């Protein structure tokens, strides 16, 4: 492993692409083979990512498993392929590799252009992983944008009735957001002279690079806008319900499970360490948006007639917690936020999987079409309830830990914010349980539901995986938080302005740059 370390992340990045290549070579039929290949590739990726937490050094605040090589080199424009992993990206990477096989498995019912579906999905996986692993701003942006394309196709081709509208809204919304981030990246590059993230933060730390207040503010805002749309924060969230509802199950799972995390990831990776002063300045406003998101998302979820949309809006609410935790700007809140990202990925991913399974049976998401499913579908219903309980923050299940840590972190900074956020938890229980009541319990109101088949083996495999993850995250959270600790502290340290004497210290170890 020692010897392999520099190549490990690249290997993880390339494995889905290898799957893509294999799929390309295969004929359109039979579907079963294509599915197995896709599943194999995604499982292999997952397997490859499993050693990461074990070989991850808890004490290192910086990047591990780093690998760097020159990519584009023109005078004045040097972009590197530079990947690395820290406590922040570690679990997001794992989350991605964990959810993708589930997404693949959940896509068995797809029969239309199967080959291209799985190709898109695997390309998407590489793109997402790249976003979390890239340490070069250029590389980051490339992954950030590129992953939109497969997602766009997934929504647009394999989605539901209003898929076209949803797809275009999704891509324009997010691309418009990142357009300004591109400008900011370039500007930052201009100021720092490099695209290397680590180099830029080193310069900032050492006082070699000083941003004026105005520069910092604009840079921050440009980055923030892109991230806020991805997260999504109120009022930039309206792409999300449409995209989620129209996307096929796998799309929703990845969208909610991983894609939304990119925004929060960006905040942590870029906004906080690079623009600490601007971050502090805008914290009250963003926290206000996060709070609005929490309450607003919850209230709007409450009245959704469409189950998938309900889950989508609940994501808005949950991601509000993540942002709030980040903005607490203390270790507890930040770890809570990171953990909550993972939790939300698993739980909401699970919910989308379940909603998707119901859709596979009835071809509708409308809550009123269901009712009394516990009778024909006991297993599915049990898992449904389980995942809902996890989502509404029952202790010993995953979401509770994240949310509570966030609350602890936030309370320290601003008790009122914590109070409002806690209100969101109450509402969360309301809308989720109400949905459960209408979907799972009661008499069967629609005769079509009486004869539905219970979870198949494939579906059980998916659900068991989700359930195990939920329990594990809920009970053994220190296994996760301990690996985030150094990184969280590091980010916060970076936020404290550089002392002048730091500048006189010996330069940091050489980084691949220029």
């Amino acid at each position, binding site marked *: 492993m020692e010897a392999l370390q520099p190549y490990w992340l690249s290997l993880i990045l390339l494995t889905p692409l290898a799957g893509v290549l294999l799929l390309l070579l295969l004929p359109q039929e039979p579907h079963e083979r294509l599915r197995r290949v896709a599943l194999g590739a995604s499982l292999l990726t997952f397997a490859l990512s499993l050693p990461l937490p074990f070989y991850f050094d808890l004490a290192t605040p910086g990047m591990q498993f780093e690998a760097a090589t020159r990519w584009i080199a023109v005078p*004045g*424009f040097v972009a590197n392929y530079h990947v690395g992993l820290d406590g922040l990206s570690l679990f997001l990477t794992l989350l991605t590799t964990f959810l993708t096989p589930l997404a693949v498995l959940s896509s068995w019912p797809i029969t239309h252009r199967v080959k291209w579906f799985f190709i898109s999905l695997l390309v998407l996986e590489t793109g997402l992983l790249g976003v979390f692993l890239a340490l070069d701003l250029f590389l980051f942006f490339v992954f950030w944008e*590129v992953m939109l394309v497969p997602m766009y196709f997934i929504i647009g081709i394999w989605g539901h009735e209003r898929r076209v509208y949803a797809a*275009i809204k999704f*891509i324009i919304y997010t691309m418009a957001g990142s357009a300004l981030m591109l400008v900011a990246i370039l500007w930052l590059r201009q100021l720092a002279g490099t695209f290397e993230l680590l180099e830029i933060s080193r310069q900032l730390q050492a006082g070699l690079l000083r941003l004026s207040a105005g520069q910092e503010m604009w840079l921050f805002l440009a980055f923030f806008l892109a991230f806020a749309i991805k997260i999504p924060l109120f009022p930039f969230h309206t792409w999300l319900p449409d995209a989620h509802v129209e996307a096929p199950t796998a799309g929703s799972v990845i969208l909610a499970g991983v894609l939304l995390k990119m925004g929060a990831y960006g905040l942590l990776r870029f906004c906080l360490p690079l623009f600490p002063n601007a971050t502090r300045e805008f914290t009250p406003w963003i926290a206000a948006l996060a709070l609005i998101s929490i309450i607003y998302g919850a209230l709007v979820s409450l009245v959704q007639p469409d189950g998938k949309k309900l889950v989508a809006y609940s994501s808005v609410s949950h991601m509000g917690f993540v942002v709030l935790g980040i903005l607490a700007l203390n270790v507890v809140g930040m770890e809570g936020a990171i953990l909550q990202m993972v939790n939300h990925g698993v739980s909401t991913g699970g919910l989308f999987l379940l909603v998707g399974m119901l859709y596979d049976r009835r071809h509708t998401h409308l809550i009123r079409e269901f009712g009394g499913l516990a009778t024909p579908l006991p297993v599915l219903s049990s898992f449904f309830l389980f995942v809902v309980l996890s989502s509404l923050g029952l202790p010993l299940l995953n979401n509770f830990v994240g949310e509570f840590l966030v609350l602890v972190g936030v309370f320290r900074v601003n008790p009122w914010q914590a109070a409002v956020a806690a209100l969101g938890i109450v509402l969360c229980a309301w809308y989720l349980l109400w949905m459960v009541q209408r979907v799972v319990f009661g008499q069967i109101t629609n005769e079509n539901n009486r004869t539905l088949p219970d979870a198949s083996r494939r579906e059980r495999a998916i659900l068991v995986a989700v359930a195990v993850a939920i329990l594990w995250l809920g009970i053994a959270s220190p296994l996760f938080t301990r690996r985030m600790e150094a990184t969280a502290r590091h980010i916060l340290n970076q936020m404290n302005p550089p002392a002048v004497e730091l500048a006189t210290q010996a330069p940091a170890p050489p980084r691949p740059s220029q």
Partner: protein
Amino acid sequence: MSFSLSSLLFVLPEIVLSLFGVAVMVAEPFVRPGRKQQLGVLALAGTVASLAAIVFQFELVRRGAPVAAFGGTVLMDSFSLFLHFLVTLVTVLAILASFRYLDREQIHRGEYYALLLFGTVGMGLMVGSGELVLIFLGLEISSISTYILAGFRRTALRSNEAALKYFLLGSFATAFFLFGIALLFGATGTTILTEIRSALAGAQANAALTWMGIAFLFVGLAFKVATAPFQVWTPDVYEGAPAPVTAFLSVGPKAAAMAAFLRIFLTALAPAAGKWFWLIWVSAVLTMFMGNLAALVQTNIKRMLAYSSIAHAGYILIAFAAGTEYGVAAVLFYLVVYALMKLGAFTVVAHVSGPGEERLNIRDYAGLAAREPLVAGCFAVFLFSLIGVPLTGGFLGKFYIFQAAIAEGSPWLLWLVVLGAINTAISIYYYLRVVIAMYFREPSAEIEVAPVPSSVAFVLTLTALGTIYLGLASPVLIRAAAAAQALR
């Protein structure tokens, strides 16, 4: 100034092309109708030979040959060679893309190829000349060739109209261009760019004449490059011209004119850069917005792509406005990328439009992905590249342009980049409309599938792969950067 045979080497590509052009003309009567493709092959050979000649010139320059001949009017610098290569390559692809089209439209004639070759000669002169009159002549040759090519579908009213509008407005703009030359000549007493530069720098030149000259030159060049407010002709002409001609037109002459634009403004008019910077700035903004906004509402794909060409000219102007070596490199690189994707896109249009160019509505692309996966796939690549999605040349090109502008350091350029970014966002919508049609929609009616001709497939594959290749890693970028140094 004495004439030596060796100075002919400076115009070797032009000579080659002209000879082949003449050869095509001469051979025309001897080739039976239906086999005119042989003439195309001949022309292709000419362009390939010309490419070889350019490579040879590269080699010469590398070995230290002088870069100027004919009294500084013809240049063989890396800038010129880079663009020579580009415009010739464009011609190669345009010829290939035309084979089947001409058969299909029953307008297969040798003159078509000859005109393409001569047009390339003109463009070569534009990019390789250091003197205004020669540039003007090159411009005229390429313009006149394209006027004719635009009207090549003689029985099609739209084609006629395109030729007519192009011709009238083109000549109109040419007159302005000429007047500009005259005024600059009046101000400085010379038409050689380097001399103009020193005259302007030395401040012996008459200010009013200079400014008027610059203004009129700007009109002429901006017209050819199709930047606002002189872009008006573009959509009509692109729409009406035969699709492969549009492909050629939107790329070759535009690149050549842009090269001339750069060379004139950055070499001769560099001392006045502080002033014309604003012209470029405003023009860039107007161009981007007009192109993108108008493209939003188009239903005719050719016209939509025409507006998109305008918008892209605007992006190019961003780097131009930077005016640095870096900016020029960005322009050059972008021109290459742009050439590939635009050529590819119009080739797709030419192929899909069917006999008589009947199917030009975006709706006609519904279900194309299922009917013709290769064509649709390539088109998607071009469209994504036109948007500027990473891993395509379009992204890297735009990135490079934006970076060049920001690297210049002026806040105005930063704003320009911001506007460019906003425009990129606007543009997503209309490009993706086509993708939606191709991939997300089912065809409204049964359309018989014409097999993709091998030449078209070749062009598409080449341009698509090229587009992606340019987005991955790019020696072309380095070449462009090197070429840009020639202007300083």
